[in-house]
């Protein structure tokens, strides 16, 4: 299959005066049409910067220092301003973290939707509102009520669903969701995850889901890319990642995720702490926390290698590792 999005050896650096910080360090990722790809990692792992790069929207002092991003046949990093404007929202749209607080507080939801659509060249207001109603309905909201509301009149969960509807107003091929349910309570979170699973079925939408929470990944994703210190360290299908992880960090993340089911005795934290990206360790960035580390890991950084059937792992000793829930 030809991937919808293909990212090769992406490098994003932030120039902080006291040296360049590599937030994304030669990360590679393919997203197939129609799938939900989860990018999972802790804070500072580079997942948000990676998503910003897909939109070529990395804020200064950050800059994309290397690599290639292809969306269908477009080379995203070489699009001109006008092409980029068309690409964003129409081809790829993004629901930013805490987006429910980013709506214009003095505009009704209907006007925000019409504004967006018209800025991107959809002319008729009636057409836009019809589409908006359909999308809000899909989000299990009452369109007639929500369209005429101001953001403050909606609850956090309703606002988040309205934002997702706005992001879909131009029929994008891919939707990026950055921590779409943090700051929402558990019951609302479950409801929104349900809706997202539904929307994918109905629209055949491709999603890139960024989260730190393995439970959300488990609920929604088809495939997973695990990020650590700016690198993609393991990519695989959801069952492979959860039941037969091959990177020690993935194994650690799963055993560090508390759960309501299963034996608590199997759960344990990952020792040590995430690396300082201004002064990263030599060799494999995970070696100071890894129980399997050898001299080779301390000296030579492992490449992200294919180990069959679309699975990728960046670990010298992957064949010794077997983890799972």
């Amino acid at each position: 299959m030809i991937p919808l999005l293909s990212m090769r050896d992406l490098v994003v650096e932030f120039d902080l005066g006291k040296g360049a910080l590599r937030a994304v360090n030669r990360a590679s990722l393919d997203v197939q049409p129609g799938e939900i790809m989860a990018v999972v990692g802790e804070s500072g792992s580079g997942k948000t910067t990676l998503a910003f790069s897909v939109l070529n929207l990395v804020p200064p002092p950050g800059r994309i220092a290397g690599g290639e991003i292809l969306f269908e046949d477009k080379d995203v990093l070489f699009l001109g301003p006008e092409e980029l404007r068309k690409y964003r929202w129409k081809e790829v749209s993004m629901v930013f973290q805490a987006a429910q607080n980013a709506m214009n507080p003095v505009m009704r939801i209907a006007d925000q939707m019409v504004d967006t659509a018209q800025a991107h060249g959809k002319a008729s207001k009636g057409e836009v509102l019809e589409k908006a109603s359909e999308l809000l309905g899909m989000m299990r909201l009452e369109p007639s009520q929500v369209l005429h509301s101001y953001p403050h009149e909606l609850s956090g969960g309703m606002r988040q669903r309205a934002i997702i509807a706005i992001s879909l107003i131009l029929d994008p091929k891919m939707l990026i969701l950055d921590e779409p349910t943090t700051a929402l309570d558990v019951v609302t979170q479950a409801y929104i995850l349900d809706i997202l699973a539904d929307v994918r079925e109905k629209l055949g939408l491709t999603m890139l889901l960024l989260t730190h929470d393995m439970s959300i990944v488990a609920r929604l994703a088809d495939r997973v890319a695990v990020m650590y210190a700016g690198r993609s360290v393991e990519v695989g299908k959801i069952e492979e990642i959860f039941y037969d992880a091959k990177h020690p960090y993935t194994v650690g993340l799963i055993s560090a995720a508390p759960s309501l089911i299963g034996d608590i005795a199997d759960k344990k934290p990952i020792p040590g702490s995430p690396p300082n990206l201004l002064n990263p360790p030599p060799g494999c960035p995970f070696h100071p926390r890894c129980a399997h580390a050898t001299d080779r890991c301390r000296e030579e950084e492992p490449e992200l290698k294919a180990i069959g059937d679309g699975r990728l792992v960046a670990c010298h000793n992957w064949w010794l590792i077997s983890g799972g829930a």
Partner: protein
Amino acid sequence: MAEPIIELRDVNMTFQRGWLMRRAQLQAVVKTSLDIKEGEILALVGESGCGKTTVGKIMAGLIRPTSGEVLFKGKDIWRMGREGFQEYRRNAQIVHQDSYAALNPVRTIYHSLSAPFLHYHLAKNRHEARERVAELLQFMGLTPPEEFLDKYPHQLSGGQRQRVVVARAVALNPKLIVADEPVSMIDVSLRLSILDLMHRLNEEFGIAFLYITHDLATARYFVKGGQVAVMYLGQMVETGKLGEVLQKPCHPYLQALLSAVPVPDPKKAREKRPLPLRSLEFPDPTKPPSGCRFHPRCPYAEDICTQEIPALRSLDGRLIACHLAEKIPEWHLL
């Protein structure tokens, strides 16, 4: 079991919101009673806005309830003399969610941690205080201590900072630590290590914990054989042994909450179906629903639920505030 250290008796807490024409009363905590026994671990669980943090602050003596009693060794802390209150203060400490906000940014770790020793004259001089602080850091896993003593909070990682905050709470050897969402801002790979550390404090020094959280999965990990109390909109709805409560939740709110918690296992996560509620929306806390505060969302609500406030009553070895507790269909996690 052991004696209760701190007891809340019919505590109410009302906040004034807005002013003049828009003045409203918010009953954050309604007629709540809760005991913590010596060496016990109790999880107080609920969603944002349910009043769990307010209960924690009342328990730690940071705010005075509008009515009701807060008893320490059987005496009301708000009616005792200065000395008694000081003794209570030493014995009830709090750990907040945001370790960065909890530490003075212009003081070194030594400076922040030596303050309690010097204030209570537990160290004769600065030299001795420094030794005590070093021992404390060692126990908290911040080794070698010399590397941390003269650092400022911003030079530490989130996990290390939270260890410092826990260290400060432990410094005076308290009987109770109120831990309010202590790991929700910590990196996921390190959360369990902070919970493990607090568990060790419980085992080795018999410190009781009130663990306040919205996250039932971390509560299960930390509390182990202890108790859980579940709050909804200012009221306790179900309390009991955590294992039993998770196994067979009785209150419809708790059933809904458990059904909504995602699990880190793809097969089970997709089998799990949220319990359908009549409404997803959290009511306006300044205008709480009549009767049972959960009735507008409850799939089982009957007439009585809209009229009478259900009292917390004993059933099958736990406490439940639901008129229909005997009739609610059984529900299991998986």
